[in-house]
């Protein structure tokens, strides 16, 4: 559109300038871009304010102690204990980082320093595309192929008659791990590429082997960027909604083990929002949980930003 604006307004501009009217266009364009800048700020404030207003109303109605201290989430009985939700979110996201982050970082390290050159671009392209693949597609793949597998594994571990199944934290963590690998890999590739070549050369000149250079110079040199990549993966895993909803089982309880159905904050919001009337305590409590999720994820993002702001390389 900006391009068309240029083309269309070219003739107009010339005419206006001839009449000394260029100032009006000038002022209008300046006003427009200023309004756009203000719009960004206002809309952000609005999003946070609406969420905070409703969320705080929910916390007032229910009580903070119940939301972060009780273990029974039962909106129809007026019980809003958020512990199962919070625990589910944290464990599945942490599990995803444990399963997904290390392989991603090591793969990126190998590709940066050891892979044949012809392999680098395809590798990056592959992970760019897989990181853009919709999360529901991952969720569906996990639902149809991972969950049955985990079901068999669970029964082998706990015995045939045990109350365990494929849906649960184990599947959710594995799914999220698979989902964050592409993102973490790409961010790690960027971080490792930012390590100056001179450091690698110096290390080699001191007699270090390539592997020593990679593990003692390149990776420590990029640790901040790598940490940012991992935190970013955690934030994505904690905020993920639909894919997790498909494999976690949706039972509003603390999971006794990794193979029992449980729930996460975002999953519960999507499920309960469909039958909560806006304005009722049920709905307000969900906004309160969203506020908790927001605090969790923006805490992580703040740490990330602090780390990347002091990036000196």
């Amino acid at each position, binding site marked *: 559109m900006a391009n068309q604006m240029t083309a269309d307004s070219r003739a107009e501009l010339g005419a206006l300038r001839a009449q000394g009217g260029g100032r009006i266009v000038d002022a209008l364009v300046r006003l427009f871009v200023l309004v756009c800048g203000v*719009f960004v700020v206002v809309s952000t404030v609005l999003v946070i304010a609406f969420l905070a207003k409703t969320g705080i109303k929910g916390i007032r109605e229910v009580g903070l102690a119940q939301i972060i201290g009780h273990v029974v989430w039962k909106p129809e009985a007026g019980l809003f204990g958020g512990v199962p939700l919070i625990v589910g979110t944290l464990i599945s996201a942490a599990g995803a980082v444990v399963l997904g982050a290390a392989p991603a970082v090591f793969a990126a390290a190998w590709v940066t320093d050891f892979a044949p050159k012809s392999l680098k671009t395809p590798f990056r392209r592959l992970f760019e595309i897989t990181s*853009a693949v919709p999360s529901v597609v991952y969720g569906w793949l996990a639902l*149809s192929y991972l969950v049955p597998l985990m079901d068999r594994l669970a029964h082998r571990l706990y015995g045939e008659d045990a109350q365990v199944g494929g849906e649960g934290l184990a599947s959710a963590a594995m799914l999220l791990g698979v989902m964050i690998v592409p993102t973490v890999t790409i961010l790690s590739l960027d971080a490792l590429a930012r390590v100056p070549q001179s450091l690698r050369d110096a290390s080699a000149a001191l007699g270090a082997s390539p592997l020593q250079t990679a593990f003692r110079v390149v990776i420590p040199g990029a640790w901040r960027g790598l940490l940012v990549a991992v935190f970013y993966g955690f934030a994505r895993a904690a905020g993920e909604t639909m894919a997790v909803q498909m494999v976690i089982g949706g039972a509003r309880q603390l999971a006794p083990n990794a193979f029992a159905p449980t729930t996460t904050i975002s999953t519960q919001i999507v499920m309960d929002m469909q039958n909560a009337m806006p304005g009722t305590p049920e709905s307000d409590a969900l906004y309160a949980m969203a506020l908790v999720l927001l605090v969790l994820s923006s805490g992580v993002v703040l740490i990330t930003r602090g780390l990347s702001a002091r990036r000196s390389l």
Partner: protein
Amino acid sequence: MNEARPTPGSSLALHTRRGHGTERFILRALAVGALAIAAAYAFALLFLLVRGGMRVVSFTSYATPLDGIEGEERMRFGLAATLFAAAAWAVSSSAKRLVPSLESRAGRRGSRAFIALAALVGGLFVRDHLPRFLIALPSETHAGGGVGPEIFNTLYFAVLSTAVTLPIGVGAAVYIARFAKSRPFVSTVRTALDTLASLPSIVYGLFGFLVFVVEMKAGYSLIAGALVLALVNLPLVVGVAEEAIRAVPRELEDGSLALGATQVQTVLRVTLPHAWPGILSALVLSIGRVFAESAPLIMTAGTTISRSTAYSLDPFRGGETLAVHLWYVNSAGLSPDKADVSAGTAAVLVILVALTNVLAARIGRLGGVDPGRRAARATR
């Protein structure tokens, strides 16, 4: 995006010096691990395409009759035209690679005419013989449901949300990069963008539900979903557009200013045309995210397709996208063939997303490879 990457091993040929014993073993293990991960993802993509593609081709029955739906004919024409134009484009670009003499002005014109002709012929004569999965209405209870309206809604969402993101995103980027005078305000805008980018998508959904669906009484509607998606994409578009604007060579702008142009004229005629490929690739990427997003749309645009308004352009009707459909079929669908429907939907979705990615990379490279022509166009 196009920053110069140091090429490891360029000066000391690091990777020709392999280590010994344990080191060699560790290196080999790393290589096997990295390649195994890449192979797994590549295999998963391929599997999605093949399994879903088979379903797309082999669907044979319509669950619901298609006649009497407003706009259905037009949609079919558009789909056939697009498919055939894409095929013709693929043919003509590979022909160009084989016969270099086609890379002339006449050759380009000829290939353009060929593509247009193929689109027209395909649209007119093949529209009744399209893969049925792509045009049939979805079905919750019977086998044989398709994703026609979902494809339409997905693309329509892309158009609606881009119509909001483009002017506001580019405007804000121009403001930050060129017009802003006060530093505190610029850093406020930046913080706002960072905050927006860090919000979990479910939070956008709750916001959209509260504001657009409930307070503004729009109900579950495409416009509510599109506005939420525009917000989701704003940080990406502003960020990339700002980077592209800042990358415009200072000399070009100074030259324009020295010729007596005002700052606004310089931005409109020199800076933006020059930064355009970068902005465009950001837009294409953001469209990819529109295709992929599901949670905010479930809460703002609903999960239903209504037969009477399946292809209506009215933005105040509700409707689901491909991603939402994929979720809905698996969580609430009762149709006996939901595994097949999911596979087909996932394949269409993956193709769309991969296309946007490839396109964005291509356009982005357009910005880096040939600055001479763009500079010429910008300063003409």
